[in-house]
């Protein structure tokens, strides 16, 4: 019996999940196919909508800046309402684990690079760390954690002009972990509240950590940690630390493996489950079947056997260069599943800028879509009547420079999913 659904979404990151949820909301039966772990484990878990339009910023209101974006920018195509709808759906999915919906204004969140960055939604775990909050701050780091020196971060925050007192302290984690223990080791110990030796007695890891921090508080009103305060029980870990310390506690998002990103992935998958979206993970989509301009099925490589997955509507949300939804070789850039049109300079020496943070054409590589997120060919006609795209696989924006990657995933995901669902 063939596998058949109304809507098939390729890709299990933020864009794919939102597209699948939007399609399901429209009443379609939806299947999501994802290959590798999503790139959320590399992501900060912050939902940036727009912080630096056209290189200016940081801007406090992302919506005010939308009209200045070029016509082929995904936001210009999807429209402001799609961004708002995407955020609404996101807020629904994440319920009270994210903040920021009370205002259109961006928040400035401290980064582990010591800077602050504008973002539209932030995990509750990061909420007490906002840079526009005048309360004094202590940033805590751990000596064996090389990614982050709390004293350097706090001095950098000062250099950024934050309107509060900030100090940094580097501590030894109160248990003898090996010197190169990963953040997951710390997080697990806190999650399970492992009994450890501390000051001559056996106490829980959370209490031991709080006791280590306590002498450094010296009257500060909030304490920031690198994002390793638990995994599955992160809220509980944070609450315990707050009650031991008597001040608010927050996390500063870190690089991979990123707990805020992983927690967001869990929330999305739970919502997909609730919405009845079928999931097929672990195998790549490698090919497709079409009848004229109508896609019939995609082929999933399952142990070298090509299994067709049929659907009426398809959403490509396989990610950009990082997620390998866009691939390249020495002579060209390509979208590997449907061979969709990906505009790019023919000379690969025109793909980059010589400045590391310059205006990189490669950052904008992706497929071309219309205002319903239909994938277009090189003549601006739909490649297939029933293929849409969402997220980083869509070209035309440098989400890293603009701080818009997540917002683009939400807006394009909502439009692609909704339109796909409505076409059933």
């Amino acid at each position, binding site marked *: 019996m063939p596998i058949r659904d109304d809507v098939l979404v390729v890709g299990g990151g933020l864009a794919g999940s939102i597209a699948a949820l939007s399609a399901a909301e429209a009443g379609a039966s939806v299947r999501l196919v994802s290959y590798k772990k999503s790139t959320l484990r590399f992501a900060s878990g912050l939902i940036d909508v727009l912080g*630096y339009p056209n290189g200016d910023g940081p801007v*406090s209101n992302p919506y005010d800046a939308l009209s200045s974006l070029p016509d082929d920018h995904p936001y210009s195509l999807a429209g402001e309402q799609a961004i708002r709808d995407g955020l609404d759906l996101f807020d629904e999915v994440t*319920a009270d*684990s994210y903040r*920021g919906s*009370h205002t259109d*204004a961006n*928040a*400035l969140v401290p980064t582990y*690079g*010591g*800077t*602050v*960055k504008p973002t539209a939604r932030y995990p509750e775990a990061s909420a*007490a760390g906002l840079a*526009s909050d*005048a*309360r004094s701050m202590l940033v805590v780091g751990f*000596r064996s*954690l*090389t*990614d*982050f020196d709390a*004293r*350097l971060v706090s001095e*950098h925050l000062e*250099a950024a*002009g*934050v*309107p509060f007192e900030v100090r940094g302290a580097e501590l030894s984690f109160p248990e003898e972990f090996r*010197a*190169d223990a990963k953040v997951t080791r710390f997080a697990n110990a806190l999650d399970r509240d492992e009994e450890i030796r501390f000051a001559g007695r056996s106490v829980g890891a959370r209490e031991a950590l709080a006791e280590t921090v306590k002498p450094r508080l010296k009257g500060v009103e909030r304490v920031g940690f690198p994002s390793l305060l638990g995994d*599955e*029980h992160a809220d*509980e870990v*944070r*609450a*315990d630390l707050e009650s031991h310390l008597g001040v*608010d*506690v927050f996390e500063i998002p870190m*690089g*991979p493996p*990123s707990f805020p990103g992983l927690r967001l992935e*869990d929330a999305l998958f739970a*919502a997909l489950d609730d919405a009845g979206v079928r999931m097929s993970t672990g195998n790549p989509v490698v090919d497709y079947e079409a009848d004229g301009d109508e896609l019939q099925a995609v082929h999933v490589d399952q142990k070298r056997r090509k299994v067709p997955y049929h659907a009426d509507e398809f959403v490509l949300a396989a990610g*950009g*260069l*990082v997620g390998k939804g866009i*691939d*390249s*070789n*020495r002579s060209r850039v390509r979208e590997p599943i449907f061979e969709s049109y990906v505009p790019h300079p023919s000379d*690969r020496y025109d*793909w*980059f800028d*010589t*400045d*590391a943070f310059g205006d990189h054409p*490669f950052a904008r590589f992706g497929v071309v879509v219309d205002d319903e997120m239909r994938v277009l060919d090189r003549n601006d006609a739909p490649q297939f009547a029933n293929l849409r795209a969402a997220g980083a696989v869509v070209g035309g924006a440098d989400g*890293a420079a603009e701080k818009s990657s997540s917002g683009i995933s939400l807006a394009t995901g909502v439009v692609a999913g909704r339109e796909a669902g409505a076409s059933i």
Partner: protein
Amino acid sequence: MTDTPHVVVVGGGSTGCGIARDLAMRGLDVTLVERGNLTHGTTGRMHGLLHSGGRYAVSDQASARECIEENRVLRDIAAHCVEMTGGLFVQKPDDPDDYFDEKLEGCRECGIPAEVLTAEEAREIEPYLAKDIKRAIKVPDGAIDPFRLCVANAASAQEYGARIEPHAEVVDVLLEDGEVVGIEVEHASGPGKRVHRTPGSTEKIRADYVVNATGAWAGQIGEMAGVEVAVRPSKGVMTIMNTRQVDTVVNRCRPKGDADIVVPHETTCILGTTDEEVEDPDDYPEEQWEVDLMIDTLSELVPILKEARTIRSFWGVRPLYEPPGTGTTDPTDITRDFFLLDHEERDDLPGMTSIVGGKFTTYRMMAEKISDHVCEQFGIDTACRTADEPLPGSEDFSVLRDYMDEFGLRSPIGRRSVQRLGSRADEVLKTGEPNPVVCECEAVTRAEIRDAIEQSGSDLNAVRIRTRASMGNCQGGFCCHRMANELYPQYDEPTAREALDELFQERWKGEVHALWGEQLSQAMLNYALHATTMNRDGDPAAMDGAVDFAAFDGGVGVDASDGETGRSDATAADGGTRRGER
């Protein structure tokens, strides 16, 4: 003269550092100046081949003999910089038999151990060799770390009392009464270790003798002294692969040509090279076709290279020289021999000698010859000891123990650290502190990073060449900022930030020559981590104008526009459970 004479060596490459060491060991008072890092010029931009001499066994037998001799010396005195991989000269069907025979005979004439292997035997050593190869000659080629070697020479010179001044660019050669009496340098950030944001200064260094060991830049120093040194800089590209497709040096066995060697180097392979004369050693095009040529031509020899991941490319300039009147047009025909130009004999300008030409493998021998020459000027007849006395790090190379337990390091990391540090391992790794890994690609620990900072100041590129940190697959995306963290608190926040920016740009520079496939994905990931997650490109601390913090969200219950930042209720300690809790 009762005091030892003061010699200034200009140039901190392998030759300059070798000369500084040699002269210092003979008791002379030496100052070495280098405009960039040690190895900044040609030394830091070579493919890391320790020649057996096989390469020159047909075309230049004198060089071939020197190579095998020095090959043996370096294995001895610089064991921690050398990996004896062995080498193969591989014949493809269209490579001439005559040349193969000449090569074999040449090797034997020059005392280079050489053995003919059948195609099957060669593929047993290197399984990725092309299916159609005919046969190969096995020779004792090896891989050598030019950074480690050069730094070890400088360190040894220092131990013998020399002053080593990197980041000191010569701006003038001082002349008095038709004689060279010293140089004037501009210190990028004051004398001593380089520290970012420290203002520079100039210094006149008077000397009894000046040695110009600036290689491809020798003409520029000559010009300052009013003499002509007609170096012919010739560029060559090298492309770095992300793994060792071969564990043996693989050479193409044919008369000459571009793209004919693959050198396994640490965790990588280096493909080389081209040979093209350039006008200016500081300004020449780095072109796409050169990179493509490496991959396309060498994959005829090792086909897997065609699909493999490259991580960056770099170019070096050879300091080729030929005596006036030779008239060679093709740079590949110019001799690789070195020349000692005594400007007193040649140009009637006492007090200075230039050394040009030559090659990395014979740097020590060149240094010995020029040191003999300098000593002669002073009537000193102390013997050279550089062939016998091991370099710092190679004194006792029996230290390759399993360091896992001793330093609490995971086995491969401990092993790699110890290989890099050689006999300095104890001194560097025994800090009594936790020693986490800073660079995962190259397995470099905090202790090594801190040791390198101790040697070179806040210059993270100097830390990089000493440790290999940031030189692996991710090209620093995951570790540049960690390296900068290690500068603190010895150096302040702005200094650490500037050092990080400089290293990040340097890593980007070479990576652009590998931006397709996996490495383009990696570049995008690095960009996302540094721009999206850290916001290093939109850093308010680096921007003009203050951020209006009051205009941004201050938390739930706080009106963003009123500038009041009251207590947020966002993190009430109610222990709320997480959605989707398992």
